């Protein structure tokens, strides 16, 4: 009998889950959405996704090197950031802007805080928020889905040289012959022109929009895969969609002609992608059960408030960033009541 025994402290067994395994599965869940984005918007979407993902991974790798520590790209979390950033940008965005966005997302959005686990905001949304502020025109220039020759030629704006004026999209749109295309997303049409979009178009995503936000049903399905594998918390997306639904219900019931119904609100814009894949970023969301509900409901509420009351057509990004900012506070005020606790403590100092 071997007499050398190892001494460890209990528990001596582990579930076998690991961070890189979870992150890898999130990447798998995002791949069908990426494929669909390429199908809808062609080679430009492919180039955009490849650029953001590649740039994000590169920036993280270089950041780690500069900080003198082991590269953390192996945990796949930065790949998620890159893919999500690409999915939230318009397919025709100039690629050099995408590189700028990727740099902002990873360097100041994540690595400056200390890398995975320490960032306050969802890095992909930090990058996108920067692009929204820096290039307001480019980030709201949408192109039609299923354009002709989309696998053969780029959307002209994609290949614009840095800091130079991009070719106007009008000629290209006329050439690919999409009838009646106005360069507006269903949310813009609804908000500024009061034109409704067919629900099936919203479900299947054959519409203008950011490259990966359009196929709402597919996104829902991919999210459910992660929930079923217990790699994602179901409470946050459910709470966020519920929050949006309840807020919309208030508006819709008071004035059904002016405000859109629940199906439109849930399946248009980036709400589904945001609720499923960005609000659920565990690092920037609360950990307490009640906190998750409050966080989700709040983000749903703010999304709809921005859409209906604000100047922008879409509010998911700012809603999630605001939710991220409030997450630590929400955590502090929703500490669970422990077993056998004699009295409730009011609030815990951060």
């Amino acid at each position, binding site marked *: 009998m071997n007499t050398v025994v190892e001494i460890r402290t209990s528990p001596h067994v582990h579930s076998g889950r690991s961070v890189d395994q979870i992150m890898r599965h999130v990447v798998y869940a995002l791949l069908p959405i990426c494929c669909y984005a390429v199908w809808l918007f062609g080679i430009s979407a492919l180039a955009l996704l490849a650029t953001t993902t590649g740039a994000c991974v590169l920036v993280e790798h270089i950041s780690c090197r500069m900080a003198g520590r082991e590269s953390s790209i192996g945990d796949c979390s930065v790949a998620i950031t890159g893919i999500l950033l690409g999915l939230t940008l318009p397919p025709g965005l100039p690629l050099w802007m995408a590189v700028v966005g990727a740099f902002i997302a990873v360097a100041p959005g994540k690595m400056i805080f200390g890398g995975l686990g320490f960032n306050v905001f969802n890095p992909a949304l930090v990058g996108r928020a920067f692009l929204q502020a820096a290039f307001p025109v480019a980030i709201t220039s949408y192109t039609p889905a299923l354009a002709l020759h989309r696998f053969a030629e780029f959307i002209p704006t994609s290949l614009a040289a840095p800091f130079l004026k991009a070719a106007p999209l009008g000629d290209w749109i006329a050439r690919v012959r999409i009838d009646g295309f106005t360069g507006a997303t269903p949310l813009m049409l609804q908000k500024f022109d009061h034109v409704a979009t067919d629900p099936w178009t919203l479900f299947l995503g054959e519409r203008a929009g950011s490259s990966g936000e359009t196929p709402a049903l597919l996104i829902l399905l991919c999210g459910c895969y992660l929930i079923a594998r217990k790699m994602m918390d179901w409470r946050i997306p459910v709470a966020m969609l519920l929050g949006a639904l309840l807020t919309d219900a208030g508006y819709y019931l008071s004035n059904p002609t002016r405000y859109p119904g629940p199906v439109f609100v849930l399946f248009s814009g980036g709400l589904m992608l945001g609720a499923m894949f960005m609000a659920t970023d565990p690092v920037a969301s609360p950990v307490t*059960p009640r906190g998750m509900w409050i966080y989700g409901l709040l983000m749903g509420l703010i999304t709809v408030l921005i859409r209906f009351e604000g100047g922008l057509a879409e509010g998911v990004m700012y809603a999630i960033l605001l939710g991220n900012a409030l997450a630590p506070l929400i955590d502090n005020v929703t500490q669970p009541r422990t077993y056998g606790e004699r009295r409730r403590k009011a609030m815990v100092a951060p």
Partner: protein
Amino acid sequence: MALMEIFAGKRLGRGLHVPDHKEATNHLPIRRMPFAPMLVVPLSQHTGAPAIPIVHEGQEVVRGEPIAKAGGFVSVPMHAPATGRVVRIALAPSARGDLSPAIYINPYQGASQEVLYGAEQDIERMTPAEIVQAVQNTGVVGLGGAAFPTHVKLKVPEGKKIDTVVVNGCECEPYLTTDHRVMLEQPGEVLHGARIAMRALGADRAVVGVENNKLDAVAALRAAAAGAADITIEAVEAKYPQGAEKMLVKVLLGREIPSAGLPADVGLAVFNVATLAQIGELLPRSQGLIERVVTITGPGVRKPGNYLVALGTPLRWALAQAECTDQVSSVILGGPMMGAAAGSLDVPITKGVTGILVLTRNEVNGHTRIYTCIHCAACVDVCPMHLNPSRLGMLARKDRYEEMEADFHLMDCFECGCCSYVCPSHIPLVQYFRIAKQMVRERSIKERQRA
């Protein structure tokens, strides 16, 4: 009925389902293990003051004869596990890793396993105080692993009233099947022990909680109870850590033991089934506790089983009987979730050892990479005490022990290990909390000394 209990068993809100591996031994009857050539009986096998030897070196002892007396009220006597000669009274390695005084007994070859020592006593005519004394004399301690002297729990604290005795037959730790076999093979003794506890405490009913992966044990106990009105047997959901007394009383009776309190604070007393079986068996004959059922199992043994082992049997001997393989990487006393790794194979089996789990390199989680906390909340969702292990872990990393205690209920953690088990970042959470709790205890002792 059985099917209904599988689905409708009383549920534990938190906790987790761990692969239980009980199928290796749960069908194997309890078998007696032969005496080892040398038995080492430590004087401190229980919580509380060590026992005081009453034999001298060279003295002959008879199986069952007292060899050490209790060192106070929270202490129990020791009895000779085999007929033989006391070789020496000296230091012996203990499971904690240090040395502690023990009585070495060399059993006579061919010594009988029968216990001749002891006398009949009529429990029906004893007062509660006499029962407490009699239980102390048997040397019985909590056999579920805690090894807290049982007679102390049989004494009703002043100003308290105990209305219900809770009998813990959950055995939620993976691999272990000792309580299961005891319930199957000695249901009458378990219930008799429960009746004795009810008498001592003045309780008018007892509730037995058994996890619903042991429905045959539920049936055996129900058959033995034969419809008695004052003892109910309930199936509860099989989920770790259902067998923690705080969880069990909440699930069975809806009562919460207050923080830093005892079951007596809510009118309850909780006993493990094996403990009660020993009281039911030993008390009428006024004998002492000299052996216990130990599950020896795990991928590292070829003959797993439930063995009735004489106390003081060295691990090395017990493992040889179970045909231990060469691929041993660690030997755990107890279950894989809360058991302690034995530091040496010369450690004797004591009253609190429920099982010996022999793991090979394949099961022990090796040097996995530790990531930072990603706030996934998996630990928060499993913590049976509803603590926030994620936050506690971050504070522990910064040595902020006072804050952990004052604001995040550190001292309520009973170290079940669920948080470490699920953590995808492999953060040794419960290990941090053990250190933090020890630091808090030491600081409060220092402060008291200064005051």
